[in-house]
């Protein structure tokens, strides 16, 4: 798909991790080399100004995508285009750093992502100093104060150390640091999963405000589907290093196509079990397989109630269906119709979509 307004384009991204035994052991015990295919051919685009979310369970590779994007990991294969420029081609610091300034990241753990021995002022100013964005010390301090106010902290907080703040406040500092260099693209890796719900709401709202104020494009990584539903425009669902479905958020939650997406949506503990049967449902058995030795064909087939011989042998590619992209033979062949989930339109106290058509999972 040619998307002129794409800011980030990822093409067939692969990232393998070497988990082989040491060379001597391989030689003596004739053990083979082993690779974890954390990412095994992932392609998607993020349009300018949108929030694209990646969801999946632990080990599905969603964080690896984020880390490849911001340059913490080098991709094993594939291309990452940022504003049309191939990031892999930027080997020289001189060319890479100005581009890196345009993308920043917010990390998961607010207790680990700030240097405990630095004052907040120095932490927030680090991107400014690194990229030479401010001239004098006074200019720097003014900019830091402005940033702190933008994340609803006070300018005096610059004098304190990270341990003097609560988790939510630290995440605000993290956001201020990410915004310091005025990036266009923000990668948020589980930014609220270490926070309490009431604080999570504060941070999500803050991020939403800042995103519209600075017209940021976001990649939002999360395992929490409800959070993803609230913040994202489009969603990619990952399973064992591959994307199984990409769709607009409202569509994905209203009419999930891939059986794994349905499983995920169906298993979230809900506040208002629609009927007695829902409360008593026996969930799907099985777990995510070992990524060193993934199943052949569709990686989800051992847990999938719709799997047949083809699913066990042939790996499905993303195809267009019902306005979304889905990698599933059953959907492609028409064996599996889109699930008819009704979305309650009112955001009241019991606003969760109740699946009226219960899945035969």
């Amino acid at each position, binding site marked *: 798909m040619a998307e002129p307004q794409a800011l980030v384009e990822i093409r067939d991204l692969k990232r393998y991790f070497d988990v082989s035994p040491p060379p001597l052991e391989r030689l003596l015990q004739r053990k083979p080399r082993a690779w974890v295919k954390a990412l095994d051919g992932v392609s998607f685009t993020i349009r300018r100004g949108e929030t694209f979310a990646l969801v999946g369970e632990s080990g599905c590779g969603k964080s690896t995508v984020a880390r490849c994007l911001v340059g913490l990991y080098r991709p094993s294969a594939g291309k990452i285009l940022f504003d049309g420029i191939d990031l892999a081609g930027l080997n020289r610091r001189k060319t890479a750093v100005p581009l890196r300034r345009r993308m920043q990241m917010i990390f998961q753990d607010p207790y680990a992502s700030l240097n405990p021995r630095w004052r907040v002022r120095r932490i927030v100013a680090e991107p400014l100093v690194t990229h030479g964005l401010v001239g004098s010390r006074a200019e720097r301090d003014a900019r830091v104060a402005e940033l702190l106010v933008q994340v609803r902290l006070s300018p005096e907080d610059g004098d304190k150390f990270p341990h003097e703040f609560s988790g939510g*406040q630290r995440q605000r500092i993290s956001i201020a640091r990410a915004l310091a260099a005025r990036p266009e693209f923000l990668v948020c890796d589980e930014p609220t999963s270490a926070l309490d719900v009431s604080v999570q709401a504060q941070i999500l709202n803050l991020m939403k405000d800042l995103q519209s104020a600075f017209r940021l494009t976001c990649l939002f990584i999360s395992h929490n589907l409800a959070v993803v539903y609230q913040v994202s425009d489009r969603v990619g669902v990952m399973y064992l290093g591959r994307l199984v479905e990409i769709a607009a958020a409202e569509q994905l939650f209203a009419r999930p196509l891939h059986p794994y997406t349905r499983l995920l949506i169906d298993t979230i503990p809900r506040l208002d079990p629609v009927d007695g049967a829902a409360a008593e449902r026996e969930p799907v058995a099985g777990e995510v397989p070992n990524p060193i030795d993934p199943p052949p064909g569709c990686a989800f087939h051992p847990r999938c109630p719709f799997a047949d011989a083809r699913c066990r042998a042939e790996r499905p590619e993303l195809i267009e269906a019902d306005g979304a992209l889905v990698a599933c033979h059953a959907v492609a062949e028409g064996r599996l119709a889109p699930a008819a989930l009704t979305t309650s339109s009112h955001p009241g106290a019991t606003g969760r979509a109740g699946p009226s058509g219960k899945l035969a999972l």
Partner: protein
Amino acid sequence: MAELARAPIAAPRRLPRLRRFLDGDLLWSFRRSPVTVGAAVVAFVIIGSAIAAPWVAPHNPYDLASVNLMDATDPPVWLHGGSWAYVLGTDNQGRDVLSTIIYGTRLSLLVGVLAVVAALILGVALGLVAGWSGGIVETMIMRVADVQLSFPAILIALLIDGVARTMLPHNVQAEIAIYVLIVSVALSNWVHFARTVRGSTLVERNKEYIQAARVIGVRPWRIVTGHLLPNVLGPVLVIATINLATAILTEATLSFLGVGLPPTQPSLGTLIRVGNDYLMSGDWWIALFPGIWLALLILSVNLLGDWLRDALNPKLR
């Protein structure tokens, strides 16, 4: 945009540096441990007297004019024949034992401190490089460290001393003896620092604040010096304190074996060696008092190091 009220968590008020220290957990845990307070007093007396030796010591043992061979091997004051002029007696050359001890401690401490500082700089640098770069660099540094660790300090000192002796003219040897000592003690101690720092570096480098710095585009050199170094230094200070005792002891051992400081510039170890020759003839004070002094110094520094380790370890608090 909704106004977010500030969290009601009152951030701890910030006190001036001194008040914060006096108020802090460190001093509190110090005061709660009588053994530590005792050790600190002993260490203070020994180290303080060594630093202020010219004013504290009753005699100057280096001033040959003031030494009278007639006073040689006088016993301590409380024995028959002792005098208040030489409280702890005199040695075979008529030097006041107390004064030689105070001046000797000075040299012992000098060697110990310089050796630890050298070992610290070398070890921290190599540990940081090993932990940060990984791969073949790390393997090489850590293998060298392993080999180093399998040689006792004395062997290394003997080796360096031997090389220095064959390569340098005789008259220079006495002058450079102290540097040979410092280098050999430092070489045998850097491994502890390197290993600890490498370990902490491996932990810290995977923390998100380091990754954040990489994402921002900070140069690797600045990440190592600005972010990593301050965060791996805590345990290093503890090791340095404990290593100071080891270094002093190593120096004493080397001097006792005769490869350390010469009798003209006696450290505590040299004093014990010299005194050792007179033990059999009944002049026990020449060896015993430097021995006790050394034991007290090592014990008190060690106790302080242990306390520091426990006080800085949040798990034991």
